[in-house]
């Protein structure tokens, strides 16, 4: 059966041919529904990295050879492409190890500022005992634990906006959690478990009215939806390359230039400095002040190609494709007896992921049956233990989409759930 699905002008069938990983899974009879964890890479990303490596590599931002200049140009062109992709200026994109590292760059920088580093320019980041950091119960551990540590280091108080039985939190609850002591509000743009989409502009308005900084975990939005951090007004944002058709080992910290230029660099060392004496060092403006040591040059260049690929498809079309698939899947699982859908109810907008629990069967057992049916999903707490605790579940099963996902793969997921119920003889399975 030929699919008639499209992402913008290109058919999904054609897009799938760009991804050797998808072809390899398909040859093995498997459907990849775990792109929220890590995405497959198109040939153009793999080839760009390989071509760069094979063409003779050289260090960036150091030395004076022509080869160094060429590597530096490619490296900075990729930065420019990524900056355009998320609506910020080139000097507002900092390379990090991954998105987790990017969030830590902010929390550790604030800890350093609280300890007096960075001088008067960094005083705006210094927390006092009794200051408040606000997160939500739905956050990924990467956007929770760094703030726990910052609170412990500074005597600040960590306050959480609670979720309801579906795992959703509200702007009303956020509003009453904020106070004039709130200094940071750290939330995800899209929940990696529920697929709920945050009204970021509204969060920014509430937070800025209290004088608080907004740190956005954009891991599940940037790869899947048009995202413009400047329009949203966020102060800092983090996302990772490997979820957006790019390579591993690379994340991005985006931030407003005036803030990045004042935030103390959490990691220090070579290539971040202007003047170094035995007693002290002065740092370059962002982004280089944060990029200590040798950077992931080939990965950065490959990420530039990934952004180019996504731009050609068009992010509005990517978002529409994935949202259509996820909303369809949410309706189908919600209609199935013995299956609990978490997150937005059927019919409500959601990003391209759906998490469920099968009554009477542990998520790992569900995942095992799906796997043997050729359906690759993520099982576990998805690095969101507090959220799962609030849901009354130890783990869920998550299916997630990307540009190459086609509707027929959802059929496999649904058939797999029915097979789970039959195999483990849970009540709803009798009629499935």
């Amino acid at each position, binding site marked *: 059966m030929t699919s008639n699905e499209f992402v913008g002008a290109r058919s999904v069938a054609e897009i799938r041919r760009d991804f050797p990983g998808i072809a390899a899974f398909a040859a093995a009879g498997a459907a990849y529904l775990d792109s929220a964890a890590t995405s497959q890479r198109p040939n153009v990303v793999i080839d760009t990295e390989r071509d760069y490596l094979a063409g003779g590599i050289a260090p960036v931002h150091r030395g004076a050879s022509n080869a160094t200049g060429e590597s530096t140009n490619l490296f900075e062109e990729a930065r420019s492409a990524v900056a355009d992709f998320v609506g910020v200026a080139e000097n507002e994109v900092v390379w990090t190890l991954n998105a987790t590292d990017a969030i830590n760059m902010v929390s550790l920088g604030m800890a350093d500022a609280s300890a007096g580093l960075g001088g008067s320019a960094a005083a705006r980041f210094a927390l006092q005992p009794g200051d408040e950091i606000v997160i939500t119960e739905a956050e990924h551990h990467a956007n929770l634990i760094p703030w726990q540590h910052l609170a412990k280091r500074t005597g600040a108080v960590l306050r959480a906006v609670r979720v309801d039985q579906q795992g959703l939190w509200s702007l009303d609850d956020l509003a009453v959690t904020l106070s004039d002591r709130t200094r940071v509000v750290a939330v995800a743009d899209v929940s990696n478990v529920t697929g709920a989409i945050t009204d970021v502009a509204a969060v920014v308005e509430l937070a800025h009215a209290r004088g608080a900084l907004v740190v956005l975990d954009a891991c599940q939005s940037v790869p899947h939806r048009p995202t413009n951090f400047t329009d949203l007004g966020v102060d800092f944002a983090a996302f990772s390359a490997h979820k957006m058709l790019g390579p591993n080992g690379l994340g991005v910290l985006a931030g407003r230039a005036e803030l990045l230029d004042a935030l103390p660099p959490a990691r220090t060392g070579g290539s971040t400095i202007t003047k170094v004496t035995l007693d002290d060092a002065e740092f370059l403006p962002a982004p280089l002040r944060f990029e200590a040591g040798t950077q992931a040059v080939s990965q950065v260049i490959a990420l530039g190609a990934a952004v180019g690929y996504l731009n050609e498809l068009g992010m509005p079309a990517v978002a529409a494709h994935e949202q259509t698939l996820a909303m369809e899947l949410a309706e189908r699982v919600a209609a199935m007896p013995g299956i609990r859908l978490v997150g937005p109810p059927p019919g409500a907008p959601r990003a391209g992921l759906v998490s469920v629990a099968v009554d009477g069967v*542990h998520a790992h057992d569900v995942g*095992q049956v799906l796997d*043997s049916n050729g359906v690759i999903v993520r099982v*576990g707490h998805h690095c969101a233990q507090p959220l*799962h605790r609030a849901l009354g579940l*130890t*783990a869920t099963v998550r299916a997630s989409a990307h540009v190459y996902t086609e509707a027929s793969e959802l059929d496999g997921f649904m058939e797999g759930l029915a097979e789970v119920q039959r195999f483990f003889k849970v009540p709803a399975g009798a009629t499935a």
Partner: protein
Amino acid sequence: MTNLESLYQDIILDLAKSRHGDGPLDGADHEHHEYNPTCGDQLTLRIKLDGDQIAGLAWQGDGCSISMASASALSDLATGQTLEGAQHLIDAFREMLRSKGAGTPDEDVLGDAIAFHGVSKYIMRVKCAMLAWVALEACLTEERVQRAS
């Protein structure tokens, strides 16, 4: 037998449902809590000793069918064993789970627990099967340390 059936043999599904040894244990000599952070499976295992012998063993926990079934199987096998016999059992079970499906496990030693041989082909599930067994091993180690001091 399909791959799935070789992993989830009927005896495993039965052991997971029947949960032999599930419950509290009064007057326990040793207690150990094990937690698998990747999936949230957790289990507390307690033993009561009579000299060198495990006179009582009980566990409480939540987890996938593999972890619950293996706790059941352990409860059947280890109760009444000597400390040394229990350690021998754990060693044999671990060796079987590290076999990646190779060899034939010793039914004389492992009894019904040979049903878990199929789990050894699923590297992501080996920890599930080891959960209760690792907890018992920690209890045995604690007893040895106490005796040595």
